[in-house]
């Protein structure tokens, strides 16, 4: 059991921080970038690619760096720290993760290398309107005719769906005698029968309505098999990465708030003279550190090959609660300036709220954990099923 990053990991953090500070150290820069499509800075994206960060978790033979969950955690946390709008978790961990989990060697070599080089922006098209967080697809269906697959139905919200070069789409397998379940497909951005309508999300990101009308699609993997279990695992990995992104954001929100309490004067004194406020800041710190421990642990479970789905639910629950607590208090302790767009702290709250709802919120994670709560006597973080 060891909670310390090694020196290479610390170097990685320094390097990522340096790059992102240059890009977004001035928060006005983020506002400028997110104001126009695609909602992130293509140059910064290329720089992330040049540093090898966009291929971090992929195998070397597929053009990646073969790094583990801790390196991804570091990048995600640094992204969260400055609210970099580049869709790292979305494109690399989620969309890339699905290709890595289900694709053939040739598909991986092609798509993952493109993601790693920054030449292919991949987006996961999984959520369907009117449903909640599920590892399977229902409304979008896949049909095979001869050797060719086509997709029909609507996915929304698809993060970065309008800008994406390739969509990784989950779809329900139809047809008598087939395996049923959910399979994964690649759909190129220029595919016939594909229409996309992009829009801005409240946290400065981009999402899209994506309609498939008999759109030609390439099956991921050799056979049409149910991929629900693989999807579940990739979602779990992304939840853990998001937990780290949220930690970075919460950390900045808290530090910004503490700084503000020390400088803002009312009634002739700085606000940190009011215990009603400093105690609330202390409680924010407690929430942050508990969530940080849980997120780091979930990454360790992923690294150890343990039950990543359960660990991710635990991290999701803890960071959801912490994110809401810290996000709301950060604004309240700032007063009016906290709700303005010129000031950073509200943007952190907006981003934390978005992260909370992409892949399952705290209550959602809680009900999954509650369903199994009687199945074990105690939770041993250093034992089964987490140690693998």
């Amino acid at each position: 059991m060891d909670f310390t990053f090694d020196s290479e990991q610390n170097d990685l953090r320094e390097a990522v921080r340096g790059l992102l500070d240059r890009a977004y150290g001035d928060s006005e820069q983020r506002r400028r970038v997110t104001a126009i499509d695609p909602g992130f800075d293509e140059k910064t994206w290329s720089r992330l690619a040049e540093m090898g960060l966009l291929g971090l978790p992929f195998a070397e033979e597929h053009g990646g760096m073969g790094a583990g969950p801790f390196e991804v955690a570091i990048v995600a946390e640094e992204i969260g720290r400055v609210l970099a709008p580049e869709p790292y978790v979305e494109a690399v961990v989620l969309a890339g993760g699905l290709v890595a989990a289900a694709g053939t060697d040739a598909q991986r070599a092609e798509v993952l290398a493109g993601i790693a080089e920054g030449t292919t922006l991949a987006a996961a098209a999984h959520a369907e309107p009117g449903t909640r967080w599920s590892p399977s697809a229902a409304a979008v269906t896949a049909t095979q005719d001869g050797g060719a697959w086509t997709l029909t139905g609507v996915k929304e919200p698809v993060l970065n769906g309008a800008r994406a070069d390739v969509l990784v789409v989950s779809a329900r397998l139809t047809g008598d005698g087939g395996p049923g379940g959910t399979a994964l497909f690649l759909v190129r951005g220029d595919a016939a029968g594909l229409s996309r309508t992009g829009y801005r999300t409240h946290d400065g990101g981009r999402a899209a309505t994506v309609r498939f009308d008999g759109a030609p699609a390439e099956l991921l993997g050799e056979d049409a098999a149910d991929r629900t279990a693989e999807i579940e695992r990739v979602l779990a990995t992304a939840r853990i990465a998001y937990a780290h992104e949220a930690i970075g954001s919460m950390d900045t929100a808290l530090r910004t708030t503490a700084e503000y309490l020390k400088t803002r004067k009312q009634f002739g004194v700085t606000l940190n003279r009011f215990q009603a406020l400093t105690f609330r800041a202390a409680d924010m710190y407690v929430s942050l550190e508990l969530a940080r421990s849980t997120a780091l642990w979930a990454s360790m479970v992923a690294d150890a090959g343990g039950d990543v789905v359960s660990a991710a639910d635990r991290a999701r629950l803890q960071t959801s609660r912490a994110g809401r607590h810290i996000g709301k208090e950060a604004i309240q302790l700032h007063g009016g300036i906290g709700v303005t767009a010129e000031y950073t702290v509200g943007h952190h709250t907006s981003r934390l709220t978005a992260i909370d709802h992409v892949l399952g919120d705290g209550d959602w994670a809680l009900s999954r954990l509650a369903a199994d709560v009687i199945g074990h006597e105690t939770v041993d973080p250093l034992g089964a099923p987490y140690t693998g």
Partner: protein
Amino acid sequence: MRLQLSPELEAFREEMRTFFTTQVSREIRDTIAARRDLSKEQYVEAMRTLNAAGLAVPHWPVEWGGRGWTPLQMHIWREEMQLACVPEPLPFNASMIGPVIAAFGDQEQKERFLPRTANIDIWWCQGFSEPDAGSDLASLRTTAVRDGDDWVVNGQKTWTTLGQHADWIFCLVRTDPTAEKKQRGISLLVFPMDSAGVTLRPIQLIDGGHEVNEVFFEDVRVPAENLIGEENRGWDYAKFLLGNERVGIARIGSSKRLLAQAKAYAQEVTVGGRPLAEEPRMADRIAELENELLALELTALRVVAHSADGKPHPASSVLKLRGSELQQDITELVVDIAGPLSLSSFADGGSEVPDWARVATPEYLNYRKVSIYGGSNEVQRTIIAGTILGL
């Protein structure tokens, strides 16, 4: 970053688990599992069993019975002990006065007190708080005036836990009332509870139990050699002592055990023929507490791992604060699981109400104390805001 314990630590954990679950009397562990109070004799027996195996004071200097363990080993030792329902070594001896004497006492005091403290041949009690000196401990007023070879002590202490069992008391007393800073005129004196002029009066708590006392001193004569360390340096020793007290006060192992018990209770109680544990609200509540406890345990592990270089990790103040809140939340959960059965607190003999439900409310009420003592949770928030956030 690595999840697994090293093979050596895994073996260490197994060794602790085996010892605690096989070498400490079943009756004692059953009493703890039933959440009933131990008798003085049981307490002494348990600590002596640990001491004989070198497991009572592992954090002391090696020459006085310490084991030179890493913080992570200490954590495992404590957690396994709590999970196995083994009573922890008396904190007044093991975590409070023992380490202070080992660090600040003279050689004669060490030889005189430390072996008997580790073996609980002396049962110590803590005489710090006074009616007008609680969180603001340095405002204490009990005085000690030098008279020949003795100090003469007058005043009153309160909240003295298990003073009724105690052989000796360690007491903060004011030896220099003229000191410019109130912290500077305080000394640490130790003396027997049966010294002439010491009177003990029980305080009953809201659970009906007797665990704290008031202690009055009227011209108590204490030999000069019973002053620990230097005269008027008592505040430094108190701060050292209170710092040690906070370690391990999160009681994560005990909370885990109680939560596991709560799950069993919630399966015993039925609602419309189905176990209460299956009600979504109840299952959610248990699962949320379990996750909070996990987060706290992981934070404790993170903190101990980082404090290896001697400096406590800043997040350690989170442990007391959250640890006490979770102990309280879980005792509250048990009362709610007991529901109407929780009213039968003082039933005995012929009652149909299971024992766990009878102890539920007294324990819940008693546990309101854990956010008050050991530096109240408001004091912890002050520390976090001040020393960590710089507010």
